[in-house]
């Protein structure tokens, strides 16, 4: 890669970082209800499954 191409890419990264630092260029976050449903499926459900396994074993 030539020096000019390196320079262009550095400039590209700088421009990109300036954009990403702005809140309107951020990906949308999850809502609290999204987190609740996530915890229900991946936190509470496994506990129930483990309890069932314990009873069955």
């Amino acid at each position, binding site marked *: 890669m030539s020096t000019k191409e390196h320079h*262009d*890419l550095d400039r590209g990264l700088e421009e*990109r970082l300036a954009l990403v*630092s702005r809140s309107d260029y951020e*990906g949308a976050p*999850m809502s609290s209800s999204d987190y609740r449903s996530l915890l229900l499926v*991946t936190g509470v459900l496994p506990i129930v*499954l*483990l309890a069932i*396994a314990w009873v069955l074993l």
Partner: protein
Amino acid sequence: MGAAVTTELGNKTTSSAVEGSWPVLPSERSWGGRALFGISVSAAIATWCFLIGGYVGNYLPAGVGTIVMIAGALVGILMIFLATVPVATKYGIDSVAASKPQLGTRGSWISLALLYTTVIGWNCLLLVFLGKAAAEILITLGIVGEGARPVLISAFGALAVVVVWWLLRGGPDTVRDTGPWIAIGVLVLGIVILVLLVNRVGLGAITSAVPAYASGDKFLDISLGFEVMVASVLSWWPYAGGMVRLCPSAKTAQWPVVFGLGLPVGLVSIIGLWSALAVPKSAGDPTKYLTDLGGPVVGVIALLFIVLANVGTVMVGVYVTAVGIKQIAPLEKVSWNATTALTLAPVFIIVLVFPNYFFDHIGTFLAFMGVLFAPMCGIQAVDYFLLRRQRLDIRAVYVSDRTSAYHYWGGVNPAGILALAAGFVTYVYLLNPVTYAARDPFRFLSASIPSAVVAGSVFLVLTIFVVRPAGRGGYEQDRSAVPERVSS
């Protein structure tokens, strides 16, 4: 002319972001929920699922093992999710870049080392698996005798390393389309194996089979099976960030990650569990029973498929690692072919020199996934949600000199390193990854979860009492920034 140059520069930077490690802008994130789900399933479902399930079959019977593996897969993916998905989807960065705020700009090389170690480990397993399948084909066809098996395993494994390197010469294009075909093929193979097992061994015999190493202590056996599954899913840490950063939002990524990257490992591993119980000497390894169960024709076709599928999966792993290690400054200018060779070199040596030793200690490898990634998940979740209130200085992630807020002391955050060490010690205390000897409270808590909690707690305390007062890590600016509010 000016517009043309700008467009060319724009294309280059977009390609550097999407195919490299730069942050991906929301407008460049082309993966919707369905695409992420498909790609996640493709990445998760591979022949390694048979080996994971086979290991759980050492401790748990079919019914209970099935339930426990699903629980373990869900908990593992929760830990991965909290550590990587919110930050990766917010800023469009991968898992290694997302670890710089916790470990420092140079400390994050540890993350790269984890990525390298993980993929090398999985690739070794898959290539020895491939060598076993290829050797079995030749033995079944009567071309060579039983005595040639050890030499053939090493020879075919080493040959496959060369083939993978040769196929990857063309860069990432070779890799892109292989994943879905491998996943579909492995699913078909799994169904064939299940049908063969039920037909030849019988459902009743499988469900009533007693696991070979069950202790009889319900808590301990369930915890061991659960831990194997959690640790296996934790090894998705490097992959998760790299994939979800191409999604426009965390909400879009939420269920595809859970049901595409986490749950399928648990479900497909059930086949390994059942086969380990049906054919105890196999430990879930289909090369040991496919020809016996299916006869020479079905057996050889299935073994041939294992060979091809494993070549494809190893290619994907090598590609991910090669992209990752090119983030290290001295390797930026190394050619693509040399980078893939560097990635494959340790695999070549292991496969050639001691393939069986590595394959026979798969449990140790799986436990090390928990040892390495559980503390990392705990630290990242605590830092992002509690200390930084879901806001990073994204410029500091990509600037590695002293001006970066994440330079800490010489590019390393001692709080992150000490917290990792604390998590490591906790895990090893609770479960010895080599002998699988467990200490209380492993029976009730497993090892990955306490390891993550201890690492996160140590990181929290050290940051509040040492790092933040020293004015390092950019915590002051994060505190003065407007806190992230989740919409309800």
